[in-house]
């Protein structure tokens, strides 16, 4: 028997157990504030998942995941804001304060909740498809692509900050009431909100996991290894890169929507460069080659930041930085690779000819 870590059935079992564990949390947590905070961790989990998919499996380092995340978040905030506007009061207050007397055209569709929610996902996804398509077709890759995403992120940040009458500027948008969905109000501090986020996280994880196990996933891993070689096998590398970058962006857009549903607030901070970098750090520490590892990395770092960050104040960033350096230096594939090595030691040697078993050759895995 080989390394249990690479056993697909075992992986699915671990994922199931992990999510069942997350699903029972509301039965133990009576503090609404804590439950809301735990639900936001689900958002961080989605972001780490999207980075793991794009960077770990597709080999595309994306430092601008905040674009898709932020656009999704703004879309949701606009939808929720418009839900509290009425016939007699059709324009959000911050626009009136900025002496706008008419609703801007791109706000119009958000008056309809369904259209608003669809746009919240469709706009960031379309942006990724176009931006990725243009970049990958021109064979921009590696650090150059990372820099382009960073530049694009800064551009979006600046535009949103600068166009105060349309975006709320630095104050952002604070919808006065929770999201109304099909006649129900989703209280962000309820277990309903927690379960909605968890359901989206589970769906995104299952989809991502299936993608990594499909023929598509194999090709993207081949591209991560040697894009040049894969071209000569007949695959359009740009097509695959655009597809995985877009899927990853769509997951981040869902995360953005969930965040605003939970905190009823959006600001340019969602497109802050530092936040996009921390998504990459979560995935790097947890293990970018493992979807679950990356998610756990997000929970670990954000959890530590919430609790230790208060205790250590500014020193916390030094601790985080030091930890990051140690992980990158000694565990380039993150904490998940510790588990991989541990299970590798337990694995019994295959029964095939003994000569073939020398060394603990591990394929750089699909997990």
């Amino acid at each position, binding site marked *: 028997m080989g390394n249990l870590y690479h056993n697909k059935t075992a992986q699915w079992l671990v994922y199931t157990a992990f999510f069942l564990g997350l699903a029972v949390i509301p039965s133990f947590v009576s503090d609404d504030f804590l439950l809301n905070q735990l639900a936001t961790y689900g958002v961080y989990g989605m972001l780490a998942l999207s980075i793991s998919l794009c960077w770990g499996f597709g080999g595309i380092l994306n430092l601008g995941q905040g674009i898709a995340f932020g656009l999704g978040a703004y879309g949701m905030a606009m939808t929720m804001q418009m839900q509290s506007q009425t016939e007699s009061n059709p324009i959000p207050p911050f626009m009136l304060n900025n002496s706008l007397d008419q609703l801007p055209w791109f706000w119009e569709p958000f008056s309809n909740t369904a259209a608003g929610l669809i746009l919240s996902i469709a706009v960031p996804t379309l942006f990724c498809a176009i931006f990725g398509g243009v970049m990958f077709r021109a064979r921009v890759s590696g650090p150059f692509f990372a820099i382009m995403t960073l530049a694009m992120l800064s551009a979006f940040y600046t535009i949103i900050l600068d166009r105060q009458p349309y975006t709320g500027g630095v104050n952002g948008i604070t919808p006065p009431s929770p999201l109304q969905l099909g006649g129900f109000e989703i209280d962000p501090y309820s277990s309903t909100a927690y379960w909605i986020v968890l359901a989206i996280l589970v769906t995104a994880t299952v989809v991502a996991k299936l993608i990594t196990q499909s023929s598509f996933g*194999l090709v993207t891993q*081949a591209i*991560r290894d040697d894009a040049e*070689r894969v071209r*000569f*096998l007949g*695959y359009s590398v740009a097509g695959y890169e655009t*597809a995985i970058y877009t899927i990853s962006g769509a997951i981040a857009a869902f995360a953005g929507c969930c965040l605003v549903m939970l905190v009823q607030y959006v600001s340019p901070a969602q497109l802050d460069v530092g936040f996009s970098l921390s998504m990459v750090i979560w995935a790097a520490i947890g293990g970018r080659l493992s979807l679950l590892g990356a998610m756990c990395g997000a929970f670990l770092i954000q959890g530590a930041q919430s609790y230790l960050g208060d205790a250590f104040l500014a020193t916390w960033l030094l601790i985080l930085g030091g930890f990051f350096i140690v992980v990158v230096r000694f565990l380039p594939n993150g904490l998940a690779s510790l588990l991989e090595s541990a299970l590798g030691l337990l694995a019994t040697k295959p029964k095939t*000819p003994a000569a073939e078993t020398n060394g603990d050759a591990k394929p*750089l895995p699909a997990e």
Partner: protein
Amino acid sequence: MPGLLEIKNLSKSFDATKVINDFSMEVTEGTLCCLVGPNGAGKTTTMDLVTGRIKPTSGAILFAGEDITAKHEHVIARAGIGRKFQVPAVLKNLTVRQNLEVAYSRQTNPFWNLFKFHKAGLKEKLDEIATLAGLTTRLGEQAGILSHGETQWLEIGMVLMQEPRLLLMDEPIAGMTEGEIEKTARIFKDLQKTATLIVVEHDMGFVREIADVVTVMHMGSMLAQGSLQEIEANPRVRDVYLGEKEAA
């Protein structure tokens, strides 16, 4: 009957240096053509031009009657041209099995492949090629730990998984043992029943064993083309290439 591959007046310059200079050749379907020539003659550059890795300055390349000049690499590969690189290029972080699986590229569309978890006919083909390449016991290994000879075999296996109509082999026997070279020659002869091959090779012993047609390149142009006997009898070829070899 026109050849499967026709190269017409191909030229390629890097800045002021003419690497390929008005080079033309034609490869008939079902033949094994060896492309020989001293270092820097433009053999690998020709391969790069045919497979779309670089674009020619002028000239045309036709494959099965279709113009493939300056098309994208993956388009040319899909048309049925497979290539083995001079420096063996395998996917080092994937397993041997995954390498062969990726190379089995019947379906190349990213969207269809999202829903594909099982490839029809893959197992049979993979078993066949793995046996041929002598890699059946290594399928689970990471390709990066293979020896140089095994890596060569893996890449040949990958090209075969593609089932191309035309195979371009850039120095396929470098780093192989005598026994492996003989085996390669046998496999190439076997392949010729279903495909056309162009082999770039320095080893004249190997060329003697496999070639139907030999094309000699020198300074980016064709020096001579013909059967091995004709080539060996050609005084100009003796001067620039074979002569050096024998002297060495």
